[in-house]
């Protein structure tokens, strides 16, 4: 009998300890903070943001080795330059045709296409597999405009989204990125070790009424950003008047970055 009561005491004690550990969370959420939140007044608003990249313009008008788009992005977003492919962080970067569009190349692909580099970034897919797999909703598809968002505060660093993304658009901070940001932009945060990041279509700039930094930086005007839901938008006009391709359309993710070649 004595044995029984001691055991049940321990059991009840354990249950109580579990209950107590939940207490602080309840207190904080009950804190009384009256506030009103509203959307930014000057924000660019679209229903389905997309990008059309005219590679011909990039190759013809852009200077050899031009990196304006990726440099602008890296600077604005404090993307670190870690300098080794193992730990590197990439938001927008060049890849050859065979790597950007696997399976599309043949031995007769024109030399000018096969040898030139394409610009790739997060496709902000209509059916993103990365957001589907995230166990904490640290990445999600924004309902109002389709941006595939990242909340680095929430990310636990499981890297399931990296396994799920068929485009290699996601990077993981294997090490603290801050020492590798040469010239930090004080207006935008960096990231911490152990979280995933990627292109966000410059959602912080959209909120201020600005177009994405890469689009703004391109002197050849090869990158065009706009709302696919708006028939009068420039992206729709370009899609109407040009034959465009998307990366790995067969996977059904419905990428929202289109290429003119």
């Amino acid at each position: 009998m004595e044995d029984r009561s001691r055991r049940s005491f321990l059991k009840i004690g354990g249950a109580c300890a579990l209950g107590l550990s939940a207490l602080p969370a309840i207190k904080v959420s009950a804190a009384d903070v009256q506030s009103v939140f509203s959307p930014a007044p000057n924000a660019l608003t679209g229903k389905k943001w997309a990008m059309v990249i005219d590679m011909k313009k990039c190759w013809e008008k852009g200077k050899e080795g031009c990196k304006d788009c990726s440099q602008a992005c890296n600077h604005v977003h404090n993307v670190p330059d870690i300098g080794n492919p193992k730990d590197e962080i990439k938001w927008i970067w060049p890849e050859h045709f065979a790597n950007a569009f696997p399976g599309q190349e043949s031995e007769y692909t024109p030399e000018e296409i096969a040898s030139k580099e394409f610009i790739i970034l997060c496709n902000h897919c209509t059916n993103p597999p990365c957001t589907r797999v995230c166990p904490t909703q640290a990445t999600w598809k924004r309902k109002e405009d389709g941006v595939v968002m990242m909340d680095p505060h929430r990310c636990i660093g499981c890297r399931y989204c990296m396994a799920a993304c068929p485009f290699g658009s996601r990077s993981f901070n294997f090490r603290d990125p801050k020492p590798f940001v040469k010239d930090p932009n004080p207006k935008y945060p960096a990231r911490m070790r152990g979280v995933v990041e990627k292109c966000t279509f410059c959602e912080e700039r959209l909120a201020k009424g600005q177009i994405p930094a890469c689009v703004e930086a391109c002197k050849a005007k090869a990158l065009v950003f706009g709302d696919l839901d708006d028939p009068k938008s420039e992206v729709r006009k370009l899609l109407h008047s040009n034959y465009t391709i998307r990366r790995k359309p067969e996977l059904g993710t419905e990428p929202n970055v289109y290429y003119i070649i």
Partner: protein
Amino acid sequence: MLERVFTGSEKYYKLLMSLLAVVAVGFGCYLYQLTHGLTVTGMSRDVSWGLYIAQFTFLVGVAASAVMVVLPYYLHHYKTFGRITILGEFLAVSAVTMCLLFIIVDLGQPQRALNVLLHPTPNSVLFWDMIVLNGYLFINIIVGWNVLAAERKGVMVQSWVKPLIYLSIPWAVSIHTVTAFLYAGLPGRHSWLTAILAARFLASAFAAGPSLLILLCLFLRKHTKFDAGKEAIQKLATIVTYAMLISIFFVLLEVFTAFYSNIPGHMHGLKYIFFGLEGHARLTPWMWAATVMAFGAAFILLNPGMRENEMTLKIACTCVFLSLWIEKGIIFVISGFVPTPTEHVVEYYPSIPELCIVVGVWALGFFILSLLYKIAISIKEELAA
């Protein structure tokens, strides 16, 4: 019951101490990883999962395989397994613990792990995996403990435990199915994108788990007074035989589909593991070793004389376990990342700290297993005396 872990022979303490020493080394390396980030591992932007997640995947199988002793005993009243069900359940407890630890050491922000509970996300397979794994852990602890306690007192197990025992059977299948779904539902990872993955996982689990159980039973018979009995071991050997054959068959099905269809994406992964891609062939020696061991073990197990001979059975079980450990605990996860989504071939090799952490988690698993088996065996020895 618990106090039995403190009374043991010198050999028992030496085992515990040496396991703890390995755990300490692993823990030290984990602290190093925690302060420097996952850059200290061999993982990269392109191969973003490595040995940790691979060990997790393999050990889910070991955990699920407890069902291979629980099911015949409780559903088919196969009394011979009565003595070893507790060994299966406690093996499951230690394997699931290792699984959870491997997930934790793989996280970039482990202190945020509870975000999975704070922000439950039913569309994520990982969320469900967390639920089924923790559920399975608790079911096996509760069932194992209560069945053992009842056995000690010589009474029937309490009636409320029975439903849990029956629940543990489909639950075991669920943990490995959900773990397969982690991989099998991702577009663009061709080596993983296969409908038979859950079946493949279960088949290899039901070979690897029971083969480990056979080795453990033989170990216990040598070092303690507990004897699982020849019949139980032979029945387990039969289970291993068929599960191994099915497992090999399933891999051959993958080979057929990939190469007869001739779809490049489907062939890449298999080409990489068997022959290498673009001159990168770090995994091929492992894959061929696994293949040779798999067929060697199948040959021994299919031969009744060799299966009944304990010496050859031991060799076969070791081969089965190692072969499937290589296939699932190394190759399967890594080959999913080769080639990368942008068709580059990037290879992975674990770093020394990463290997130490892996060994440390295994040692902690075996430490827990030793304690649990000590309790179970002590009680069985007392009852026999």
